[in-house]
């Protein structure tokens, strides 16, 4: 019993070490491949600009809908980041090697989700600057903006990692991932939009209450993903 109790902290340490290893590897690959900078960010900016063109005649409407447009753009761009995260593992059989490495599936899940979340946070910062410039919005609550952005990024990343693994073994994963993931992350879209409305001062939403929803979503998918990821990898 005492030996088992001693093993638990060792296993937790190993999980964190391996998660950091996976996240570092995924981020290094993205830095080298520059897919995020050369494709995902331009795609997201293009979507924002198209929204601006569509609502150009009504500057007030742009300001009002800026939070929703921002998060729709983030979710669409996140599909590319999530798909890319699994594509690099599938490209030359590294997914099998990951299974054979003996790394705890919880660490694989945590590492991949962390790498996606970091990429999404960077994307959010760039897009937020774009929204301020293009849609002429001003930030009233920076703390709420930052917390909501972080919580939403973690929520999308955890759910995305879970569903990314679910479809990774299928030939139709590129089209199936959006169909499965977008309905699931609808609560993130709603919560983050309301929180940003409050942060931008464009609506009287209870931003901190909506932040609770975002944090709850991230926690649920974080725990659910960590517990079920091993079984998903076996089936992928």
């Amino acid at each position, binding site marked *: 019993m005492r030996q088992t109790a001693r093993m638990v902290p060792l296993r937790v340490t190993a999980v964190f070490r391996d998660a950091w290893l996976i996240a570092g590897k995924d981020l290094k690959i993205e830095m080298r491949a520059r897919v995020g900078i050369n494709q995902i960010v331009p795609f997201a900016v293009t979507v924002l600009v198209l929204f601006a063109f569509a609502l150009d005649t009504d500057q007030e409407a742009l300001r009002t809908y800026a939070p929703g447009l921002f998060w729709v753009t983030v979710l669409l761009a996140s599909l590319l980041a999530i798909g890319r995260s699994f594509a690099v593992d599938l490209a030359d059989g590294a997914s*099998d090697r990951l299974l*054979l490495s*003996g790394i705890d599936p919880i660490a694989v899940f945590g590492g991949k989700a962390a790498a996606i979340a970091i990429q999404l946070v960077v994307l959010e910062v760039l897009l937020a600057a774009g929204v301020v410039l293009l849609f002429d919005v001003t930030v009233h609550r920076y703390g709420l903006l930052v917390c909501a952005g972080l919580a939403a990024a973690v929520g999308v990343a955890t759910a995305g990692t879970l569903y990314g693994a679910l479809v990774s073994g299928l030939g139709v994963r590129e089209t199936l991932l959006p169909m499965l993931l977008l309905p699931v992350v609808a609560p993130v879209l709603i919560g983050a939009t309301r929180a940003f409305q409050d942060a931008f001062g464009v609506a009287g939403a209870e931003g901190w209450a909506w932040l609770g929803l975002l944090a709850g979503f991230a926690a649920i998918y974080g725990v659910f993903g960590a517990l079920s990821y091993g079984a998903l990898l*076996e089936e992928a």
Partner: protein
Amino acid sequence: MEPAVRLRAAVTLLGRFPALAGVDLDITSGEIVLLKGPNGAGKTTLLRLCAGLCSLASGQGWVLGHDLNDERRMVRRRVALLGHRTGLYDDLTVAENVAFWARAAGAGGTDVDEAIERLSLTGRLADTRVGRLSAGQRRRASIASLVVRRPELWLLDEPHAGLDQQSRDTVDMLVRGAAAAEATVVLATHELERIQVLKPRVVSVVGGMVRSGSHSADAPNGEDGSTEGDRRVP
């Protein structure tokens, strides 16, 4: 000696197709086994089953003492599978790939340097991204990332396929090195002449079944898998 692999009436399905249809096989620790058979006979599936990457639909199996029905993760930590794909990341350098898989397996930095040197990947090659390497160099990098794990069971699927002379020699060196370190080696290859010098036990795989027979030095080595297997290459 403790068996490295023991399969009893092992059935593995690929979809609904029984890629392995009741395999009985014993491989002793330290043994070198050559799997022979025509394309589609089930050799790759047999190697993947031994690696713990395929599940048993029925039957029983043990690899390195672990039950394939419920201890596949334990098996995976102790085996190395060289398949048709390299298992490497194109955007990482050779050294980064080897270091990543070494750290994933809990190996140290000296193991990485040793593996890179052993596979002649030192110098500028070590700092080259894998995506820019030739097929042979990629294969060597892939082998280096396996060597660093110091596996107890090597599973090599067509290890010579598509390689130049230098890389084929590297594969042979790997098998000899593994055998010298008393690891078990199971390989599927059509390069029979190259393997002969290692005097492997030959096991024929035909139609998802293992044909076991007597050890025979003069039995034919045909590729059609119709011969009675389980014999020594002359």
